[in-house]
C-alpha cells in the first residue's frame, strides 16, 4: 500500500462556549471526535454530512488554517502542525482550497490577476510580474476563461465564472491536493454541471487529489470514489462510493439516501417514517440514538466504534 498523500490521524476539535456561571469552567462543544482518514494520490475522497456536522472544520484543519485540539495531519508524510512556519508556508503550494460562495471567495477590490496570482507567494523562487501575468493568463484559459480577463474585477463575472477563477487560483501552483468545500453547492444546476466537468478534466490532466465536501449526495456520488459520512463530528460510515451508496449499512446513511427527492415522479421512494425517540441521547450513547429507528438497549451506554472489513467501515451495533 503506497504512502497516502494525506493522513488524518485522531483529530479532535473543541470550541469554548460562553460561560454559564461567572466562575464555573466554560462548557465545551466537541466539533470533531477522533477523525482518521487517508487520501491517496489522484483519487476523490467525499465527505458527506448535514450542516453543522463538522465537515468544514475538518477542511480547515486539513488546510492547516485551524489548529486541532489533538491529533495531527500528515501531508506527504510531513506533520503539518509541528513544522516551522516558513516551511509550512512553502509546503502550502501543494494543497489549495476552493470555497462555496462565488461572491465571498474573491476579494472584490482586487483584479483577477492579483487574485489568481496570490498563491504564487508560496513558491520559493520569486517570479517577476511578467512571469506571473503569463502563468495567470495560461491557467485562465485552462479553466475556460479568456487570458485578457486579468485586469477585470470579480463583479464583472457570473457565479459560474467566479468559481472558475477560484479554481484557477487553486491550480496556479500545481498543487497535488485540492480541498473543495461545497464548491458547487451555490451554483445553479446547469452551471454546476459545467464546473463539475471542469474539475473532472483537471483531475485527469494533473492527477489531482480532491477532498470533496458537500451536503449534496448525488453530486458526491457522481464525483467521488471513496466517501465518509459524518454525523455530529464522528465518522459513522466509510467506504467506496459504489458500496456505500448502493448498500448503506448505517441507519443515518440510509435515512439520508431515502430523504433525497427522486427526479423521477413515478418512483415514490419508501419514505423515512418519523422516529419516536425511545432512548435519550447522552455523552456515552451513540450520537444518532434519538433519530434511529433501529436503536436498542446496547446503543445507550456505549458509542459504537468504526469497524468493518474490506474497506467498508460502519459505527453501529445493529448495522445490516
Amino acid at each position, binding site marked *: 500500500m503506497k504512502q497516502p498523500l494525506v493522513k488524518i490521524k485522531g483529530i479532535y476539535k473543541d470550541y469554548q462556549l460562553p460561560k454559564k456561571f461567572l466562575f464555573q469552567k466554560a462548557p465545551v462543544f466537541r466539533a470533531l471526535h477522533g477523525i482518521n482518514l487517508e487520501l491517496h494520490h489522484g483519487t*476523490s475522497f467525499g465527505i458527506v454530512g*448535514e*450542516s453543522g456536522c463538522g465537515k468544514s472544520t475538518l477542511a480547515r484543519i486539513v488546510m492547516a488554517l485551524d489548529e486541532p485540539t489533538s491529533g495531527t495531519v500528515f501531508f506527504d508524510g510531513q506533520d503539518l502542525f509541528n513544522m516551522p512556519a516558513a516551511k509550512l508556508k512553502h509546503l502550502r503550494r501543494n494543497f489549495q482550497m476552493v470555497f462555496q460562495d462565488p461572491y465571498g471567495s474573491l476579494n472584490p477590490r482586487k483584479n483577477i490577476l492579483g487574485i489568481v496570482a496570490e498563491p504564487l507567494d508560496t513558491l520559493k523562487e520569486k517570479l517577476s510580474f511578467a512571469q506571473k501575468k503569463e502563468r495567470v493568463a495560461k491557467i485562465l484559459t485552462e479553466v475556460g476563461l479568456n487570458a485578457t480577463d486579468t485586469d477585470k474585477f470579480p463583479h464583472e463575472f*457570473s457565479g*459560474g*465564472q467566479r468559481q472558475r477563477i477560484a479554481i484557477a487560483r487553486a491550480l496556479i501552483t500545481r498543487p497535488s491536493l485540492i480541498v473543495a468545500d461545497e464548491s458547487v453547492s451555490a451554483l*445553479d*444546476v*446547469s*452551471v*454546476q*454541471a*459545467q464546473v*463539475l*466537468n471542469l474539475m*473532472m478534466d483537471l483531475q485527469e490532466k494533473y492527477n489531482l487529489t480532491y477532498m470533496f465536501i458537500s*451536503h449534496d*449526495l*448525488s*453530486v458526491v*456520488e*457522481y*464525483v*467521488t*470514489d471513496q466517501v465518509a459520512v459524518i454525523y455530529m463530528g464522528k465518522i459513522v460510515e466509510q467506504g467506496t*462510493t*459504489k458500496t456505500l*451508496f448502493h448498500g448503506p449499512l448505517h441507519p443515518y446513511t440510509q*435515512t*439520508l*439516501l*431515502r*430523504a*433525497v*427527492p*427522486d*427526479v*423521477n*415522479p*413515478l418512483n*415514490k421512494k419508501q*419514505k*423515512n417514517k*418519523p422516529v419516536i425517540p425511545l432512548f435519550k441521547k447522552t455523552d456515552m450513547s451513540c450520537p444518532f440514538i434519538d433519530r434511529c429507528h433501529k436503536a436498542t438497549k446496547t446503543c445507550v451506554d456505549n458509542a459504537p466504534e468504526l469497524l468493518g472489513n474490506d474497506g467498508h467501515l460502519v459505527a453501529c451495533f445493529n448495522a445490516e
Partner: protein
Amino acid sequence: MALLQVQDLCVTLNTAHGPQEVISHINFSMEAGDKMGIVGESGCGKSITALALMSLLPRDSQTRGKIILEGRDILKLNSNKICSIRGNRIGMIFQEPMTALNPVKQIGAQVSESIYLHLKLTRKQTLERVSELMDKVGLPVSKFGLNLYPHQLSGGQRQRVMIAMAIACNPEILIADEPTTALDVTVQEQILDLIRDLADSSGMALIIISHDLGVIAQTAENVMVMYTGQSVEMGSTMDVFQNMSHPYTYGLFSAIPHVGSSVQLDRKRLNSIPGQVPELHLRPRGCNFADRCSRALKICKDKEPMATRVADHHQVWCYHPLTCEDKK
C-alpha cells in the same frame, strides 16, 4: 370557475440598467386542491411571479395582465382590499427561515397576528387556534412554548412556524417559495411532507417554487418551467418530466447527476448546457434560449415562440421541440 386565473401577466422592475421586463406573458390557472410547481434557475423570475400573486412587488414596479382570484382581479384592488386578501385568502412561506421571522417577537404572537387581523376572534379563541395550528405543524405547545423566540429554534422548526403563520386563516392558496432550500435533506423531507399533507387535508391549492427538480417531482402534480422570465414548458409533472420536449428542460435534466450515476465508473461527463443565462438587458431577439440551443433554427432567432400543444396537459414554447426518438 377556476379558483385562480393568471392571464398574460407581465412585470417590469427598475434595475441598474433601467426598467426591465422580468416576467412576460405568464398564463396558468388553478383549482382548489391543485398542486403546481414552478421550476427554473435563479433569476428566471419564479419568485417574482409569487410576489406578483401576493402583490408584494416593490412600489416602482409595473404589472400588466390579470390575476383573477375567486372572480376578482386583485391587480385592480386598492391596498386595503389587497391587505384583507393577503394572509387571509393567500398564504406564503419564504426561503430563509433564519431571517423570515421577527427576532424580537415571540413565535406565539407572530402566529396569532394574522388571526387577529382577519378572523377577529377573541383572545381565548385565538390562543386555542394558535395551539391547534402549532400541533398541526409538529411543534406541540407542550414541548415548544408559545413564548419562545425564533433564535431558540432550529431552521426546520422556524420553517414550521412560518407554515403555521401562512395557514393560520385557512387560505385558499398556499405559495411556498423555495421552502426547503436552506434546510438539510432530512429536514427538507419532513417539511415537504408537512406542506403536502396540510394542502391535502384542507383542500388548499399549493404553488411550490424550487430550483430542485427532485422537490418538484415529488410534490407537484403539474409544473411550469421558466427561463429568463418566460414559461418555456408547462403541463402535468408526469408529461413534462417523462417526455420533456423543450431543449432547455432536457438540458436541465441531463445536467443533474442522478442518484446511481457515477463518473468514476463510466467516465461519462454531465452534458451541461453551453454558455450562460443572458443578463436581463442583453436578452436576444426571438427565443431567449436560441443562442445556447443546439436545435435552434433560423426562425428561433427572429420570432418569439408561441405555445404549441404537445399533449392535452402539455404545452411547450418552442419551434423545434424534442420528439421521442431525439431523447433516446
